Every structure is written in C-alpha cells, then in structure tokens.
C-alpha cells in the first residue's frame, strides 16, 4: 500500500533580495509505501527541506499534489507528524505532557493517553524521565522525545527533518541505531531528510537522490541491506560501501555539473 504519493511537485518563490522568481523544486515525484523508510538526499540548498515542509503542509506548493492515504493534503495535520532539527519541544510541558500532546488534541481520555505516552517514552528509552522538563534533558534525549511525541500519534507518515544534524557524532550513532530498532519493531512509515550519506544508507529502504536546483529526482536507490541492522556490522558490509559510494558519485556528478555550468 502506498502511504505517501508526491506527484509533479514544483515550488517557485520570489527572492526577497533580487526580486527574481526562483524555481526551487523543478519536478519531483515519488511514493513511499506503508512501513517503508525513505530518505531524501541532495546537494545543499536543493530544497529537500522544502519538499518536507510541503508534505507537512507548512508551505504551499506552486504545482503538483501530495496524497496521504489517498487524500490530498492541504494543510498541517496529525497524519503527518514532524520531527524537527531544533526538536521544537514545548518547554512549558513535562516530558509526559509533550509526549501526550497529540492524543490530548485528539480528545483521548487522560488515563489512556498517559498509558500510551508512557509506552512510547519507554520505547525510545525515556522511561523514568516523565516528570522532567525538556530543558533538563540532553540534546539526544530531547530528540528521542521528539520521536516519541510523533509516534504516539500513530501518523500515516513520520516526517523527519535532519533530526540528528545538531547532535554530537557519538550520540548521533546511538540515536540512528535506536531509531532503526524502533523502526524494525513498529514499522512506521518514515520520510527522512538528511545530508549525511552514511546515515541515509544505514537507515533507509530507499534513498531518493535529488539534483541541484531546480531539483528533480536524479535517482532512487534501493537499499537491500538485511535487517535488523546495527552500525558495526551493517556499515562493514561490502554492499553498504558500494551503495554509499554510488550515492557519493551521484552527488559528485551534481557538483561537477555545477562547476561546468559556472564555467
């Protein structure tokens, strides 16, 4: 079953400084299946985050359609929970209050939403921190909460916007492994924006490689690495390096193309 379908997406905007109309997204189409982990990669400034913001309903597209579970998307909604790079947790709510926020908006009774929030908090490794406030958590733990807050809502697709980019390298490895573990356990549908090639290959079932702006889908790479995955074994597989090198080459060609255009 297709969870998310993007068809002929384009986005133009007017540059605030020059006043010129700029095409950020040329023509992007792809689908994400239910229970699939799909990453999107591309040269910096290619508009990967814009794609995510359009899917989330935060930004309006110039043309094209976004369909989630067969329905066309017009604005933000709980079927598309977002994990932000900046975490975007509510500082005035406890860890439990943050995790239960979506269920409260849905009108789930207090007892039930607390039980479900606790379940997801322990799934991401935050059991025992329910009464803390976000600022009392480390960056890595804050992002665990960001993931739990979305998953507890059981969205049709979880959108993740470079969620580990602002976290130190060591913690990032751990978070990537734990995200994989949670994914393999619960099989949510995930759409993941990143600029880290290894991260994309390690986490994903498929990787969408975008071209430079105006971006189009350059290639969709299928990652057929076995699950369950963990960082040590998976990254040492010859297939892992092969895939990573191939994507590096695809992105490298992009940069070479740029150099040619510039010259």
């Amino acid at each position, binding site marked *: 079953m297709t969870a998310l379908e993007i068809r002929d997406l384009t986005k133009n905007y007017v540059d605030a400084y020059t006043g010129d109309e700029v095409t950020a997204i040329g023509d992007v189409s792809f689908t994400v299946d239910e229970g699939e982990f799909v990453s999107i990669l591309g040269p910096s400034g290619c508009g990967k985050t814009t794609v995510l913001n359009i899917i*989330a*309903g*935060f930004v309006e597209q110039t043309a094209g359609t976004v369909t989630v579970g067969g329905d066309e998307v017009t*604005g*933000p*909604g*709980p079927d*598309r*929970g*977002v994990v*932000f790079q*900046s975490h*975007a*947790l*509510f*500082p*005035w709510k406890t860890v439990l209050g943050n995790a239960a*926020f*979506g269920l409260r*908006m*849905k009108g789930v009774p207090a007892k039930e939403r607390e039980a479900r929030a606790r379940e997801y908090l322990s799934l991401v490794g935050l059991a025992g921190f329910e009464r803390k*406030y*976000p*600022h*009392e958590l480390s960056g890595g733990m804050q992002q665990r909460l960001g993931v739990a*807050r*979305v998953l507890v*809502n059981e969205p049709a697709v979880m*959108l993740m916007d470079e969620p580990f980019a602002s976290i130190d390298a060591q913690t990032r490895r751990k978070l990537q492994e734990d995200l994989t573990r949670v994914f393999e356990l619960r099989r949510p549908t995930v759409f993941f924006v990143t600029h880290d090639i290894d991260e994309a290959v390690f986490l994903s079932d498929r990787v969408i490689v975008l071209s430079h702006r105006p971006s189009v889908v350059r290639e969709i790479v299928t990652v057929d690495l076995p699950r369950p995955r963990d960082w040590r074994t998976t990254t040492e597989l010859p297939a892992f390096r092969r895939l990573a090198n191939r994507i590096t080459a695809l992105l490298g060609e992009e940069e070479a193309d740029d150099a040619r255009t510039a010259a």
Partner: protein
Amino acid sequence: MTTTGARPGHAKINPMRRLRRWLGDNAVVRTLGPFVPLLLFWWLLAESNAFPDAFFVGPDTVLGEFGDLIRKGILPGYLSDSITRLLYGVGFGLLIGLPLGFLVASSFWARRLTWPLLLFFQAIADIAWLPIVIVWFGFSLTAVTFVIVYTIVFPLILAVVAGVEQVPTELVRAARSLGAGRFRVFVEVIVPGALPSVASGIRTGLGYGWRALIAAEIIVGTSGVGFMMFDARRVGDVSEVFLGMIVLGVLWYAVDALVLAPFERVTVERWGMVRQVEAGR
C-alpha cells in the same frame, strides 16, 4: 556503600568559608544585607549635623514617626487607600491590556493599523492626562484609576506583541502537525510561549502604575501615601516625607518578592525559558 566514620571533606571546611556560605544562603541576610551600610551611612550623615533638621532627619526620627503614624492609624489608612487604588488600576489594566495585546498580536492587519496609535498614546505621559481626567471625573478614585490603567495598558500591549512574535514558528508548526487547530495553538503554544515577555511586561507595567499612582495622589490627593508626603511637605514635616519614600520602596520590594518573582519562578524559570536572574544558584 559503607558510611561509617566521619565524612571526609565536611570537617575540613574552613570556618570563614562556612560563614560566607551561610550568609549567602540566608534569605534574610541576602534581602536586607545590602541595606545595612546604606542605613549606617544615612545615620552617620544625620548625626554629623551637616544639614539642619528641617531638611534632613536620621533613621531614628523616621522610625519614631513611623510608630506615631501607625498608632494614630493614619499610615495604615493611607496605605490601604493607595493599595486599593493600585489594585483597581492593575486589575482593569490587565483585563484590558492582555486581551488587547493578544488581539493586536494575532493579526498582521490589526498590528499594522494599531501600531502608530499605540506608539502615539504611549508617548503621552500618564501625568499629562491628569488635567483632562480631573475635568472629566473630578478628584475621585475613577480619575486615579484611569491614570493607572492608562499607564499599565500600553507597556503591557507592547510586551504581549513582542512575546507573541518571539514564539518560534517551529513550535506552532509542531503543534499543528500534532493535531492542534488554531484555537488550541493559541492556548497551548502562543500564550505560554509569550509568557516570559508578558511577565516582564506586567512587571514594567506595575512599576509604572505604582509611580503614576503616587504622582496622581500628589495632584488629585485627598488621601494615600503620595498625598501624605505632599501634605507633610506643606507643613514642613521632613520626617514624614522620608517615611513616605521608604514605604514606597518597601512596598514595591514586597510586591516584587512576594508576587512577581514567585510567579516567574514556577513558570518561565521552571521551564528553562529565562536564565535565572539571581546569581550563585
């Protein structure tokens, strides 16, 4: 873990350091300590007879005056008059300023249309309204309340607008993508997100309101601390003027320490939204 024997590290703390720590931790010392040298200086200045008694009196005289006015019931009466006026003014000020602030902040057009007006009216000093207010309402509680409300409302509106603008877009987006509609976003995100700025707006507003009250009492006055001070000046009683000034300071300090600071401690400080002001914690 074995815990027999003396705890090392505890016995060896040098007594001076322990005294310093005790002084630093003690709330009374921390609150009143800085006033001790000030009082001492005041007392020495008065004792030196550098100024005649008609201009400058010492703390002992003021303390005597304080006891006297308490006994006669004048100070408690005036004080409760002043506080009642302030409460009325602040109450109405908050009631008008908060909703208006959120209204102005919530819409781009409302902000566009009202901003010049807000800046214009904020620029007219509160006291500058007194002549016309007295014409309209006479020497009454209404006149004083009007001036206080006026003083509080504008800084409050500006603080609310600034607070709403400070709420990160991502928090609003997060709430929306978790199923919150526009009203829930307002209640759950905009209002608490604006609170740090709103709290400091209330603090500023109260401070201005307090000053406006005293000024209004001096001019409109039939009772109150401001009236007491001005009346004392008329009959040449300097000690009562001094007393009035001290009462104003103590009262403001009390409002800040008993109402505003605890409110901020359980909200914005608890949430990690401001750095704690007090050092050494």
